[in-house]
């Protein structure tokens, strides 16, 4: 009985030590506190841009934010053309960031009253530039 208790205690201690060591505790705490110290005082959009979700291409997030501000309120949705941006790492972030405005990625047909944004590519045919944005443009049907 006693030996089993001791075995359990030792195993639990080792398991806890493994959990803590695996997390690289001190380094992790230091790094996270430093991130909070540097960006905690910033605007929510800056914190988002500095964070992991925008890490794939931080300019793309800046483009999205400018696009969000430039879209007229009467717009019903946005078509997004960003061929260099993967789904995981950018497109889902774009759809999320622009919500609740509906966003369709590379749609074959764009619904009426929708605008489009293009990033890292030439505007598709049939569209004209409404506003230049960093790395792309906000487009309206010709």
């Amino acid at each position, binding site marked *: *009985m006693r030996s089993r208790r001791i075995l359990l205690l030792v195993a639990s201690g080792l398991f*806890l030590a493994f959990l803590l060591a695996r997390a690289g505790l001190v380094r992790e705490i230091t790094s996270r506190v430093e991130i909070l110290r540097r960006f905690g005082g910033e605007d929510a959009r800056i914190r988002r841009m500095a*964070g992991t*979700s925008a890490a794939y291409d931080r300019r793309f997030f800046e483009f999205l934010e400018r696009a969000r501000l430039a879209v007229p309120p009467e717009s019903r949705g946005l078509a997004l053309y960003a061929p260099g941006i993967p789904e995981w790492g950018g497109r889902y972030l774009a759809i*999320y960031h622009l919500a609740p405005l509906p966003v369709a990625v590379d749609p074959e047909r764009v619904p009426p009253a929708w605008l489009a944004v293009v990033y890292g590519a030439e505007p598709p045919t049939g569209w004209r530039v409404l506003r230049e944005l960093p790395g792309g443009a906000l487009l309206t049907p010709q």
Partner: protein
Amino acid sequence: MSAAGLALSLCEVGAILALAGLGGFAVAGAFLPRGPAYFAERIGWGWAIGLLLIVLDVVICFALGVRPGPLPVVLFFLVATLISRKFSLPLLPRGRRGVGGAAPRLASAPAAAEGRASRSERPAGRGEGEPSVRASLVALLFLSLALLGTALYLLRALTEPIWSNDFLAIWGLKGKTLFGDAGIPTRLFDSPSFAFSHPEYPIGLPLLYSGVAFLLGRWEDHALALLFPFWLVATLFLLYGWLRRRGASRLLAFAAVALLSHFEQLYSSFLTGMAEVPISFAFVLVGTALSDALDRTDAGAVRRLALASLVASGTKNEGLFLVGTALALLLFSAWRRRTVRQDAAAAAALFGPALLCTGLHRLALGNHPLRDFDFGFLSRPGLATRVWETIRAEAGLFQSPSWLVLFGFLALLLALGRRARHGDRLLVLAGASLGAYLVLPVFCVQGPLWFVTWTMGRAVGALVPLVAAGATARLAWLFSVDTSPSPAAGAARGLPSP
């Protein structure tokens, strides 16, 4: 938003969540007997109820065409509290553990024996009665470790705005859209553009996220992460309270809580915003309520089972599966014990809310097939290749040191433990889910490797709190002075009769 803005948002969200927990705690009187034996668990259940009331408030406001906000939710909490008072359970006298004692009419003979054994034996257990200085110090150490684990998760969750891909693509996107549209737009569920966001998933979490945003008055996806450490704390309270009530010593329960709080594979920055942490909490709700209902511990057990079924079914499909497994286990147990009639209410409590949840989803939002799986692979050529790919991928995943150490530790716990029905049931539930997860990659549309790489680890990790409860319950005997329990004492711990 300035630095003060972030701090203010955290305070505001923290206050909303704390008030929801308090409101839920008041309503929880209809689900658990009052008294010290149930106090810690009541905090956990109160948290679940508080969040559920926020979700129900959003649903009702949407249905009535009213914008959810502080006033409707306060009214809703008041009404829920008043209703719950009509159905509140009696106060449990100090010293009673609620095993057979709270509801004499419901208590079966073994459960009553368990209650007697609990009362007569518990003071003799290690760490009980008048705790020694050493036991108090060890308890303090475990408590400090649990606080450290919680603080670490708080730091991980709040370092930056919620960033995980599934939050952006599924849970957060839906929540933000519900908040922005002040309703449930059909495009989220019938437009091919949003097919990636899994229209077939339950929308409990998006409704909750939008509900918090309505209360806050804005969408705040950094402070929203505060929900997740709250879920951890609620899970720890639930685990501690249930283990204590079901015979574990204080030190053992504290040790389980301390270890679980440091399980970073679940309580991680990456999984913050996703469904794994809330569903792991729901798993513990279902498991403990099922075990209590089968043992007829108190008059609230069946009510808790219904509540747990609703929470689990509304959170994620894995929750629905666990509810189905729990129902199968309940029916099997009832058939073996010939208590089908007595267990009918518990079966209805499991089945009804799950049916309501999935039925409402299908009626309101449409019938969507599981997007990631195709069971037609069973009848197509190449099934054997898929099975082999699954085995190879799973072997690759689970041979990493973190999983090997976890499984090794778990194996040791199971070896040191003894049969305890109330804990074994939780392990059966977790085992059934694990079995299903191991088979599912075979049917994954994007291939077994994709499923194992991106989903398997977190799905299995979400079972760990349930396993922790079950495995710890089996260890209770180790911390009792009486090493040769009487049949009644054996029944108390769920041991087979000699």
